[in-house]
């Protein structure tokens, strides 16, 4: 009995020692004052796209790890404006700066040398001086996504919903991030036709890049023309041009036609809402931006910041995919999509990130 009491005391003492130690350590780490800032890309912080997704991840990390993040909206969208935003944050003591969008590539290329003590996270791009000679310093991480996998599973979902139909694609500028969506989309259609018994076609002239990320009228006109000549589902990976496509999708559905739009980057379901409470967004090909910014902050706090590398987030890391809730998809379709997603995670399905023979550009 005495022995047991001694043991108990010893264990309690040890325990309190361990826990006290742990507590003091975590107090110390919050005193190391990680200060996280973000510079926004073109558009606002609640743009329902890149900025918002990135910011949500940072805010969530701030709540979990106890810091107050800050964002700066640059006065313009040139490299000088972005660099001014980065400098503002760095000079006022922010030691981790997260920037969303490929437009920051040249900015971060300069900033990583200018502020060697600041950690940079560049989402959806790689730092280079403008000629794609990529230089990633030890204080920088470049994160990109396997867009093709996201487009693939969205295509499978859309094909199952509309098994006998024509699909289209409206992209923004012809840059890799958009092209990969397109190629994944087409591979997904092919996969569904071959393995899931659908009969979906996509014609070359319905697979287009608008050349803009902001021209709403352009998106509306392209979408209207495509819908008019029989395309049933359009995948819009085009920023503001996509707003025009969604707008046209609403108009088509309201006039009683069975047309759909597939959203991009984040869950765009709410953007497609119509007065009758339904949405013209069938599903969305997502990149989980919030998870990326959250994870990077988490890594930094655990001294595991993967500086100097470029990371590609795929289905394996749950970095891409369609929303977990798709009110316009039946449970059966959702289940099939989950199967396809699991096959992508296990490597059973490999989606190519380039233009395979037989795919449109």
């Amino acid at each position, binding site marked *: 009995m005495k022995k047991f009491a001694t043991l108990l005391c010893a264990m309690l003492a040890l325990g309190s020692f361990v826990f006290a130690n742990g507590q003091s350590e975590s107090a110390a780490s919050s005193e190391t004052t990680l200060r996280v800032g973000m510079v926004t890309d073109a558009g606002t912080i609640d743009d329902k796209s890149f900025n918002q997704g990135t910011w949500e991840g940072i805010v969530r990390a701030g709540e979990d790890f106890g810091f107050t993040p800050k964002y700066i909206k640059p006065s313009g969208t040139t490299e000088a404006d972005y660099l001014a935003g980065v400098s503002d944050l760095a000079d006022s003591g922010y030691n981790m700066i997260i920037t969303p969008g490929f437009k920051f590539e040249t900015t971060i290329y300069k900033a990583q040398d200018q502020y060697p003590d600041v950690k940079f996270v560049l989402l959806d791009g790689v730092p280079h001086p403008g000629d794609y000679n990529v230089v990633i310093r030890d204080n920088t991480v470049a994160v990109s996504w396997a867009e093709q996998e996201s487009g693939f599973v969205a295509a499978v979902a859309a094909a199952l919903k509309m098994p006998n139909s024509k699909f289209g694609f409206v992209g923004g500028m012809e840059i890799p991030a958009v092209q990969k969506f397109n190629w994944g989309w087409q591979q997904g259609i092919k996969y569904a036709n071959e393995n899931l018994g659908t009969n979906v076609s996509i014609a070359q002239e319905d697979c*287009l890049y608008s050349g803009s990320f*902001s021209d709403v*009228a352009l998106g509306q*006109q*392209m979408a209207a023309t495509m819908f008019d000549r029989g395309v049933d589902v359009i995948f819009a990976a085009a920023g503001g041009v996509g707003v*025009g496509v969604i707008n046209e999708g609403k*108009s088509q559905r309201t006039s009683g036609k069975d047309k759909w739009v597939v959203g991009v980057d984040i869950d765009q379901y709410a953007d497609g809402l*119509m007065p009758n409470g339904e949405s013209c967004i069938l599903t969305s090909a997502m990149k989980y931006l919030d998870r990326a910014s959250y994870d990077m902050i988490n890594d930094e706090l655990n001294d595991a910041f993967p500086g100097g590398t470029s990371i590609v987030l795929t289905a394996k890391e749950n970095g891409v995919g369609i929303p977990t809730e798709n009110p316009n998809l039946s449970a059966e379709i959702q289940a099939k999509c989950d199967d396809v997603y699991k096959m992508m995670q296990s490597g059973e399905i490999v989606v190519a990130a380039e233009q395979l023979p037989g795919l449109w550009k």
Partner: protein
Amino acid sequence: MWETITQIAPYAVAYTIPLLMGALSGLVSERSGVINLCVEGYMLVGYFISALTISILQPIMGNSALLIGLIVAMIGGAIFSLLHGFASISLKADQVISGTAVNLIATALTVYIARNVTGSGNISIMLGIVRSDVPVLHSIPILGKLLFTNTYWSTWLCIAIWAFFWWLLYKTSFGLRLRGCGEHPSAVASAGINVHKMRYIAVMLSGALGALAGGVMIVTYSGEFNGSVAGLGFLAVAAMIFGQWKPLGILGATFFFGIATTIGNVSQLFASLSSFPPVIFKVFPYAITLVALVLFSKSSAAPKADGEPF
């Protein structure tokens, strides 16, 4: 080819209408002798007010919110244009500078309010006008397909407004006086007419029309206020000059701009057009405008007292 044209036509017409209203806004003001470079600003104000009004009213009252949004935008535009009117009529300021200032204010003010109202710079409406065929007329051969299929009701409203202004300017004594103020204000004044009052009326009509142009963009193809009308206001001013300050002229000029821009936008979609780079179609109207301005510079029909304070 014919099929291509009939497919493009409704969208070209839809794109033309805001331009037509913008050009008409410029025309009414300039024919009264007040230079109007702030069509862009008026459009932006209308764009903003209509988006805000409709986004608030639509959940309550459904589709009639669209018409109310347009009317509120016109009233707002008319009030906003008093800024330009006061500076250029009462204070006799340089009208080009006043117009530029109004453009700057419009950009800053709308974005500022929008950010405070919605938290972001964007205000989106749930649903714009749903296109429909015009009863009976759409079955007319050829023309029916081109003009009366797949149209917005706002298009017909704007064309009626255009026709009304043609009538107002050329068939009424009010119109004669208004045009007189732009050609020879002292002659009008000597006939006992208050030139300042006439010009104020013209500027306010111009503000209302410019705002209508912005509102039409919201309810037809745009659906979202995003802080910019993408230079359409200046394009409208160019169309007004190209159209030689005449209602029929601006109808032709804006339609020309509209169809060329639309072809540029959708050319990739058609095998028959996709062999040309789309940039050619997009540059085309601007290049033609430059050429036309050079050709017409000798015989320019600008109102003689345009820009002269009275």
